[in-house]
């Protein structure tokens, strides 16, 4: 397996991290990822990540649920096995609303969680590397991807000048999880006009 090199810097305050992310991108470095112990609003924008469309997926799962429930119940009660319940109409929509609603929610919730796990490539027994174990505790860890042309010493000095602590070079095997990031890496590219 190929080995990739990263320069990894740790920040202990999100107030330092934000300007650092902006300056790093402006300087033209390729940020592989930033690992944080809790969600930081606006960091995705600062990194140039696109919005997620998980919510749109959730909507489509929801209407699938609605259609499944309504379609199935009306097929059962009007065509497959019509029951005469007190002479009431076979197609009795109001009585089907509770189950329709529940299945809408159920399909949407299950679908979204599975999609979430698929997109983030998460499952039991999956092991991933996030460079620094304290990034789930109190550190904000920024990993810069190195190419053949990268001057490591210069990169380290740059990150330290931005307030990063404990900056070092880390080597990782390109496993399947790194592969996915590679494909996504386009979103980290700095556009020409944004480069100062």
């Amino acid at each position, binding site marked *: 397996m190929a080995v990739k090199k990263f320069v990894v810097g740790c920040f202990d305050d999100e*107030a330092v991290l*934000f*300007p650092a992310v902006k300056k790093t991108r402006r300087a033209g470095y390729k940020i592989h*990822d*930033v*690992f*944080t*112990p*809790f*969600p*930081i609003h606006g*960091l*995705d924008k600062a*990194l140039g*990540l696109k*919005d*997620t469309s*998980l*919510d749109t997926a*959730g909507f489509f799962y*929801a209407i699938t649920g609605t259609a499944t429930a309504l379609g199935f119940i009306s097929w*059962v*009660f009007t065509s*497959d*096995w019509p029951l005469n*319940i007190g002479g009431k109409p076979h197609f*009795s929509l109001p*009585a*089907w609303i*509770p*189950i329709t*609603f*529940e*299945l809408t*929610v*159920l399909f*949407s*919730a*299950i679908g*979204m*969680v599975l999609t*979430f*796990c698929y997109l*983030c490539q*998460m*499952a*039991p*027994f*999956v*092991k*991933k*590397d*996030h460079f620094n*174990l*304290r*990034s*789930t*505790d*109190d550190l904000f860890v920024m990993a810069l991807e190195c190419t053949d042309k990268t001057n490591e010493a210069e990169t380290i000095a740059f990150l330290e000048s931005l307030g990063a602590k404990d900056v070092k070079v880390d080597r990782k095997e390109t496993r399947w999880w790194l592969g996915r990031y590679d494909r*996504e890496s386009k979103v980290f590219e700095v556009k020409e006009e944004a480069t100062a």
Partner: protein
Amino acid sequence: MALLRYESQVRPPLIEGDKNYHQVTVDICRPVEARPTRLWWIGFLFSVALLCFGIVSVTMEVIYGVGQWNLNKTVGWGWDITNFVWWIGIGHAGTLISAILLLFRQGWRTGVNRAAEAMTIFAVICAGQFPIWHMGRVWMAFFVLPYPNTRGPVWPNFNSALLWDVFAISTYFTVSLLFWYSGLLPDLATLRDRAKLKWRKLFYGVAAFGWTGSTKHWQRFETLALVLAALSTPLVLSVHTIVSFDFATSVVPGWHTTIFPPYFVAGAIFSGFAMVQTLLVVTRKVLSLEEYITLEHIEVMNKIIILTGSIVGIAYLTELFIAWYGVNGYEWFAFRQNRVNLSSPYGWAYYIMMGCNVLSPQIFWFRKMRRNLMVTFFMSILVNIGMWFERFVIIVTSVHRDYLPSAWSIYYRPTIWEVGFYMGTFGLFFTCYFLFAKFFPVVALAEIKHILKRSGENYKKKMDEVEHEPVEEFVAEHGHDHGA
């Protein structure tokens, strides 16, 4: 940047003490990483013993049939359905806290949501036992599901409120579980990364699903939480509405009431918060989490208890008034003879219900009482008792004397196996809760860190000084050029 997280000084801090991110992790992980205490073992073993009693009781019922319970032709629903509705009601607080309060951006929910959601899930598991074992031939329980079969196929009746219940409760359970567990993932990852022992690394490694804390993952995580909250909000309200349809769509006097859905939902939130108080007043003390589950949290929940308790009180009086004002003689009989009349067989239950649910929470009009832990704990127990009697009053007093006097039942009282089944669900509930409190972080770690700089006591103090600076100095010190 930190200034963007400013919160008014009027709001009291939600995290007390001088905390930083690491300290939060250490405090919340401590009970999980320490060896279980003697107190934990005593509580846990007692719960397991209760659970065993429950298993024996249910086994008796399965072997000999529902006849082991004192149900009869008239009182066909007794303790079992009372307990079912009671547990389902308790299971409403958690998802309400985590979903509705998320949408309303209530910061205080972060301290209590994890434990409350866990409680919700366990309560729904307990609730589900009752209708399942009440089926008698429980090995045919799968008949309620619409699966292709060789008998026609015969489908369940989708117009029946009881089938709506099956869908409502199984959906509620599944969605609550997904919501709870997806929220737990980052915290499990924290435990995984702190683990020293081999089994801990394995256990939390498997449980955390390989969570890394990548920015993209957090972005998806937040979207997921928000949409699940939006889905769960109507779901929470729908579940007890549908449970109330079990009664409201029937023709039994005392059940056939249009007020039931909102009345049941308010009652469910009321009893749910009472159970959250019961558990958290003890949990915060035993696990030394007083700085995260503060008196402020307790007080806010007591305010919800008095609000929902008063809604429930209005509902009781409304249905009583309508029974008197309406033209249905049977309905008025159900209230006048079966409930309000203290000398009727179950008159006493009506007054326990009124006393515990309507009168006693009024004590929370006083701030001193809302912030008193002993009072809170005692009141939470009282509310739970009152809410159990509410369901008992609705179910048993309505059916035991309905239309034909010849069909009236003699006094219904539970057998030991009915009581045992109920006790057994307590065992199940507390066994689950003890395991949860031992192996999972009771407070949502990542969410606490998220609000730390806004609502932490030490950060608020720093902000207080900033607030009193003259404007020019403030800008000179904290202002920044947005173009830079």
